[in-house]
């Protein structure tokens, strides 16, 4: 039972990341009809917003390290600590949560520039051409990040106060071995909140209503005199923010490198396909579902039964879904069909 709970939690926090990226992908596909292979790069850029802020906050003065006698060595002491002491250290400690404030405008801007500068010219082109151009863009963005930040992952820790693990066993009357890292629980809650905000925005605002109407029938909405294109551009920006925030909050779980987006991109596309192209609830459901499946497939009992299943489970599910229900779990009829 304890092991079961742990694997569920593990699947949910992974699923949270998959769901957030897949949600953005589906938003873009549902509104603009573009298959955006640069979406993983947006996740990566979000992660590097956190890295950038951390680097900014830890700009340091070099002070000679007297404890090293063999050669001249220097210690790096952040200016924030020199100027503000413990307050400075605390600000540095909270670099990741603070990055959210930076990531929202930056990612919105990146999204808008990307859509206006490149993607809009590919609306009427084939999906294959859209994939090629967005994939190319992803590679360009990766290489830019690599040239600025290097090829190595950059450790970006969570605040000290949530660096440990929560004793879930004691909280919910389970076994003593049921502990789970605080930051992963925070990530799960964070992803649920972001998903809820996006759904509420689309469901309960006039803007959201128009966007949903445009997703259903773009031409009719246009004929009503509504500039649906401008709204879709903003939706692209929102999708970029969602992917970026997913990236920012993921940095303490996995130190980001320039390639991190690509690793998530492939999985997220599988999530979108399984959930159903163009279906927002489908993307979220499939994200969590595949996260949990992947987690269970890593259990020793399962791996003993089918060796290597943890590596292929997601793709196996995708193959089965495509064979049995080609439009995905919650996919609408007619999307990318015929």
């Amino acid at each position, binding site marked *: 039972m304890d092991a079961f709970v742990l694997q569920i939690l593990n699947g949910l926090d992974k699923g949270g990341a998959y769901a957030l990226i897949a949600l953005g992908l589906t938003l873009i596909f549902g509104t603009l009809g573009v298959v955006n292979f640069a979406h993983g790069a947006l996740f990566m850029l979000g992660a590097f917003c956190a890295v950038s802020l951390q680097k900014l906050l830890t700009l340091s003065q070099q002070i000679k390290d007297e404890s090293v006698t063999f050669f001249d060595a220097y210690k790096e002491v952040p200016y924030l600590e020199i100027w503000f002491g413990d307050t400075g250290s605390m600000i540095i400690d909270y670099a990741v949560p603070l990055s959210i404030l930076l990531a929202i405008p930056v990612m919105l801007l990146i999204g808008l520039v990307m859509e206006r500068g490149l993607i809009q010219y590919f609306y009427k082109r084939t999906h294959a051409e859209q994939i090629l151009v967005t994939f190319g863009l992803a590679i360009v963005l990766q290489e830019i990040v690599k040239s600025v930040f290097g090829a190595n992952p950059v450790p970006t820790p969570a605040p000290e106060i949530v660096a440990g693990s929560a004793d879930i066993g004691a909280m919910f009357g389970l076994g003593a071995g049921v502990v789970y890292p605080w930051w992963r629980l925070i990530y799960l809650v964070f992803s649920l909140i972001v998903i809820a905000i996006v759904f509420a925005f689309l469901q309960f605002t006039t803007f959201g209503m128009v966007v949903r109407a445009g997703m259903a029938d773009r031409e009719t909405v246009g004929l009503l005199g509504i500039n649906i294109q401008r709204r879709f551009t903003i939706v692209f920006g929102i999708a970029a923010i969602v992917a970026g925030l997913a990236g920012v909050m993921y940095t303490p779980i*996995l*130190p980001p490198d320039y390639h991190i987006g690509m690793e998530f991109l492939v999985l997220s596309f599988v999530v979108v396909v399984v959930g159903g192209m163009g279906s927002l609830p489908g993307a979220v459901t499939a994200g969590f579902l595949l996260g949990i499946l992947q987690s269970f497939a890593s259990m020793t009992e399962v791996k003993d039964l089918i060796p290597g299943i943890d590596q292929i489970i997601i793709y196996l599910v995708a193959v089965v879904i495509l064979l049995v229900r080609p439009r995905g779990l919650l996919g609408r009829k007619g999307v990318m069909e015929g």
Partner: protein
Amino acid sequence: MSFFDDKINRRRVLQGSALLGAGLAAPMVMRRRAWAQEFRNDPGNAGSITLGFNVPQTGPYADEGADELKAYQLAVKHLNGEGDGGMMNTMKPSSLKGNGVLGKKVEYVTGDTQTKSDAARASAKRMIEKDGVLMFSGGSSSGVAIAQQSLAQEMGVIFMNGLTHSNDTTGKDRRRYGFRHFFNAYMSGRALGPVLQEEMGTDRRAYHLTADYTWGWTQEESIKNTTEELGWQTVNAVKTPLGAGDFSQYITPVLNSGADVLILNHYGKDMVNSLTQAVQFGLRDKQANGKNFEIVVPLFSRLMAQGAGENIKGILGTTNWNWSLQDEGSQAFVKSFGQEYGYPPSQAAHTCYVQTLLYANACEMAGTFYPPEVIKALEGFQFDGMGNGPTEYRAEDHQCFKSVLVVRGNDNPTSQFDLLKVVKEVPRSQVEYPPTLFGGELGPYEV
């Protein structure tokens, strides 16, 4: 007939025999030179030679790769007579003169293995065919090292292994054209065993997380053999993909497995990530079977300790070399490397630096760059003053034998680099094994 009768007398026969003998002997005397003209990338009368340094500049071992490259550059500098000479001043015996190798200036080209065998082979092939390298070298993945070693044998160009710790490198996959200075997983197991027994007792239940490639497999096997000899049980051994990043799905099953020791057969960033995540999941604060839960990392380095930060403190492992060693060679190298780059070298940097000097020295000893002669000079070569005490390149498998360090993440570092504390220096005799233990054939000198 009279002609022959006239000419063939005793004197004539002797004269003829002498001439014939001289004629036959002349090529024998010059044969070494004649061979020396017929090998790949022979520098001939050129004023310089090129070496190839093929290291992971991207991928899970990129940190080690960056340090390796710095060490190679320093070695080239020293070979060319620049800088303070580093370990060239302490190496014994040494034929190095500080004027390049055999009077030719040393130049180098670099490549990125990406920690992938196919990329490493492609990069090495480019170095050999386009850049004309005489020797190539690099680490830090055994899979990659083995792939390059086999290419070396195919192409007749010597490969000096950088950091590679799999038993297979000088075991079943050994090659005549490949040499390893670094220690291996078997030696880690033999060195670590007595310390584990002393600190954790004989009644333990171990859970292995293992990088799923040749190095991980052989390390898991070696450590399992050692711990099971101590009386430990192996609860489970789970393979994880190289560069997995997030190991949480593999760590959660450990929590309720009944194990009280987690052995991480991971290296580089994989180890940094898996250890950090294991600590995040509360494994270091956990009690199991009435004992403190322990984590062991059989192979680790200062670079990894730096990446893992606080999490490495108190954790046991082994290492090939550490910058805190007080011998003359280590001190010379640390001083030289530190002055150049502002921090001490890692074990990966050390082994790569030493390998470059050893190759150069073997060329000087052989008096030629002709690979079979250089190989023979390296085989069985005994040396000292390179940071590991008396060391021998065993001829039968091209594995260096020397003492092994058991280390612990330092609880009370005295400086920002003082991250590993040497617990024990295990002598060569305790980690040595017969050359036939892991099988394998070196292959021919001539290819």
